[in-house]
């Protein structure tokens, strides 16, 4: 695939399920260089002027097309800040797959900070998938700080799946969204931290138009001595629905802090927050052990299912 070595290919498989050059539009960024890019008749990818990053323009009415923009880093000590803007035309319906894989075998920290802004046109529909993955046994940390901003025009729909299961030492994720009338935002976050890792995730969602709705669900597992903070704020400025949920399992000496915040500025803004943190239920482990699994195997199955 392009000019990538085996480690880079493995990272691409982990973060974007890519086994070959994707169909449709793509840009593959490897160690701060573009390793391949393709635009299509409906999706144009260009480099930003002045700063590092991309502009992705999707024509109105584009249907059933996808954009892949994975990032892989294998050079220890690399630190980059990238701005990617997505302009999704009215009534388009597309899938955008991002994601970053870092393999750090060296002593220096590797860091990728990606700021993604989505301008979702009226009636448009996007599914955004972002996976993070770290590997390598160097002493340098693997750091990912994604910033996501979503601006949704009336009656648009955005579904965002954000996954970080393994190997990222430090994450500070910030997600902001502003929804106009009738727009809907669905976010599913899955996170697992282990070792001494730290992961912060902050949401700030504003329902600005009548009938806007947002549903944010985070499922996470904190193992070993890792720490997670989940901070979710929904502001309802108009009649609409907002729901956030933090459902977490803690193991070993893991720690999780869930900070809900709801701000209703309209009597018809219905906002709900749910949070549950606890260890794996003992009867779940016992049930799987009665099926012949060891305690450890039972734990793994429960966590795999929980984060699926």
């Amino acid at each position, binding site marked *: 695939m392009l000019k990538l070595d085996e480690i880079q290919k493995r990272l691409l498989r982990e973060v974007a399920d890519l086994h070959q050059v994707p169909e449709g539009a793509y840009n593959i960024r490897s160690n701060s260089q573009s390793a391949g890019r393709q635009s299509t008749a409906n999706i144009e990818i260009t480099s930003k002027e002045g700063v590092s990053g991309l502009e992705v323009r999707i024509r109105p009415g584009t249907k059933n097309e996808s954009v892949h923009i994975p990032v892989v880093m294998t050079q220890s000590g690399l630190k980059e800040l990238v701005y990617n803007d997505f302009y999704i035309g009215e009534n388009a319906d597309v899938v955008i797959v991002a994601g970053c894989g870092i393999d750090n075998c060296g002593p220096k920290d590797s860091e990728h900070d990606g700021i993604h802004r989505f301008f979702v046109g009226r009636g448009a529909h996007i599914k955004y998938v972002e996976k993070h993955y770290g590997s390598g046994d160097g002493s340098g940390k693997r750091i990912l700080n994604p910033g996501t901003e979503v601006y949704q025009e009336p009656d648009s729909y955005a579904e965002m799946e954000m996954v970080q299961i393994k190997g990222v030492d430090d994450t500070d994720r910030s997600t902001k969204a502003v929804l106009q009338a009738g727009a809907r935002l669905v976010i599913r976050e899955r996170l697992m931290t282990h070792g001494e890792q730290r992961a912060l995730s902050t949401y700030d969602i504003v329902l600005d138009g009548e009938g806007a709705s947002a549903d944010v669900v985070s499922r996470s597992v904190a193992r070993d001595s890792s720490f997670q903070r989940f901070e979710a704020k929904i502001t309802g400025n108009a009649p609409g629905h907002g729901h956030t949920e933090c459902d977490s399992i803690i193991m070993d000496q893991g720690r999780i802090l869930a900070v809900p915040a709801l701000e209703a500025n309209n009597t018809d803004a219905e906002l709900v927050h749910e949070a549950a943190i606890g260890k794996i239920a003992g009867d779940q482990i*016992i049930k799987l052990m*009665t*099926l*012949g699994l060891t305690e450890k195997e039972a734990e793994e*199955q429960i966590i795999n299912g929980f984060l699926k």
Partner: protein
Amino acid sequence: MLELRHISFEVRDDGPEKEIIHDVSLTVPDSRLVVITGPNGGGKSTLARLIAGIEKPTEGQILLNGEDITGWGITERARAGIGFAFQQPVRFKGITVQDLIRLAAGRALSLADACDYLSRVGLCARDYIEREVNASLSGGELKRIEIATVLARGTALSVFDEPEAGIDLWSFQNLIEVFESLRRDISGSSILIISHQERILNIADEVVVLKDGRLTAQGLREEILPGLVGTASAVPECRKVSEKGDAVC
């Protein structure tokens, strides 16, 4: 064959309040269906949990096919051929019905095979196979899935702890058929059911009555059952009366 020899189970004073088993000796022979009945709080479920290894007896021995398994853990006993269906099935977020049945079978299972186990417990497989074993399923649905996991294991000894609890009348008819079918195909394996239900007692080879943690009667169904009919140990379907006075199955 399962043998319990002089099993006692006590809970320390500072522990949670639990039923206590006093010197229970019991044999579940191969190719036999044994039903343990008796009043609520008599220690039936505790005995089932002792057999599965979830609790450890304070005294006595448990033997499976002649081998002393008293010190064995839950996993070892499961692998040695003990299947256990919980009275209150456990819920799992994210684990689907299909996942659970595959874990129970311990092997890659075709979709058709997984569906077959569900059909046997009266569930329309297509509607359930991809669903999560979570709170979106009703008590009766979870119960039938629980029984399907034991069927999928195909163990030499299958223990069912009050399979009828929480199941509606329609499902109960189905359930009886499941156990009747298990009874027909019992060859070489054995089944132990904890139940108050007369229709389940009716398909038993042997009946054991446990009251206040002690065996008060034990023998062939023909000998024991006539003395139980009409008592809390053998209630006709939907005649069991709850503490609140509601008729439940």
